[in-house]
């Protein structure tokens, strides 16, 4: 009767591998549909009446991200052809190898809802798709269907995020990096306690090689009443060079006109 199987998508150079489960289905029904579908559902949602611009904007962003992610991995996937299915409103694109395209549809979904950085050059497209998602009427739902794999396409509920108070610019050592919502833990001579900052996936990957090495970080942080950092977001970092610091500092000093310094005491 029912059985499940697990797809482990190809590991990509951006390591976005996700384990996706096919929903339990009867074996005789398990034929992989060779289409990637963006479906919109809700009361009164029909092809004849749907907000065309909104749906097309969402679909354009989604499929552009799927293709863009595949291009970045040099995956042999081309999205050609389009079908409007008689199923609420569903826009389908046929593909040759559904199992190859699956990781890219999941990546596109995560990028649309803001939980993953989109490929270079597609940030604006992702933002436009996210904007279209936000503008969906409350009783509308969107989902992505890739073969027999289905995922809701919805923006995460806003967390109760307190505003960040200040900009921190200090030398620190990353101790731990990772997580589904990536976090980086640091210690610093300038802070009394180790602290944790949220970090984008791409920044986490860049920071990885510098685990247990000094870096200069810039972050937006919020502090607790006792002055320790209780929350924050890493904005950027720069690695610290080893070796003799003197040549670099002397070169800097000369370049900024330090030799023209004069005291002004009064």
């Amino acid at each position, binding site marked *: 009767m029912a059985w499940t199987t697990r797809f482990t998508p190809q590991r990509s150079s951006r390591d976005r591998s996700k384990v996706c489960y096919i929903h339990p289905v009867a074996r005789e029904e398990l034929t992989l549909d060779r289409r990637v579908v963006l479906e919109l559902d809700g009361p009164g949602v029909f092809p004849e009446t749907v907000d065309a611009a909104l749906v097309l904007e969402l679909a354009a962003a989604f499929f552009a991200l799927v293709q863009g992610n595949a291009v970045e991995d040099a995956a042999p996937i081309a999205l050609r052809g389009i079908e409007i299915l008689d199923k609420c409103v569903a826009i389908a694109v046929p593909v040759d190898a559904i199992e190859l395209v699956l990781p890219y549809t999941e990546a596109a979904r995560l990028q649309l809802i803001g939980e993953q950085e989109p490929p270079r050059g597609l940030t604006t497209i992702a933002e436009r798709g996210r904007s279209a998602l936000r503008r969906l009427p409350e009783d509308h739902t969107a989902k992505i269907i890739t073969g027999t794999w289905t995922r809701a396409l919805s923006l995460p509920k806003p967390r109760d995020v307190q505003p960040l108070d200040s900009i921190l610019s200090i030398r620190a050592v990353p101790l731990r990096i990772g997580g589904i919502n990536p976090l980086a833990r640091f210690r610093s001579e300038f802070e009394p306690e180790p602290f944790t900052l949220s970090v984008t996936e791409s920044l986490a990957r860049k920071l990885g090689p510098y685990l247990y090495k000094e870096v200069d970080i810039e972050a937006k942080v919020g502090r607790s009443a006792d002055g320790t950092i209780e929350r924050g977001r890493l904005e950027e970092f720069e690695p610290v060079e080893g*070796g003799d610091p003197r040549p670099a500092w002397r070169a*800097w000093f000369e370049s900024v006109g330090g030799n023209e310094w004069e005291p002004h005491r009064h």
Partner: protein
Amino acid sequence: MSLTIDVALLPPNALIDTGVFIRFLGHQPNESITPLCKAFCDAMIDNQRPLYVAAPTIAEVTRYTGNRLPRTRGLVVVPFDDRAAELLGLNMPMAKIHETSSASGLSRTYLKYDAMIAACALRAKAMALVALDGDHTTMAGAIGIKVTRPELYEKKQLLLPGTT
């Protein structure tokens, strides 16, 4: 006197004021104190003792756009951030700065820079603020930071008996 540094006297870390910093990097090469400033900073770096420089010092020194600020081990820029500002406000209120200005004749603007540098020393928990200006002794000393001059770390040669 021999111009060498007694490593045993070196602090675990130190913040250097603008005067020491610029001489370490090559300014005022003919001044008598310059070799000692360099020797102290060299000894700290060679013995892996962090040297701190206050961000306001970077502001004082910079005249025009040049190389990017180096990110190196051994010499660390201490930010004047919200924590440093709080430390300064709590430990050296403006009234105290005005009082010092009146007593010393030094401008308030000048002393504010010194106060910010002292606050950075506090922020970095520097074990010493090595400075040439006597004002730091007043300002930083008032908030519990040990203020020293480079001469303190010079290795003193003992005189031979019978010599003066």
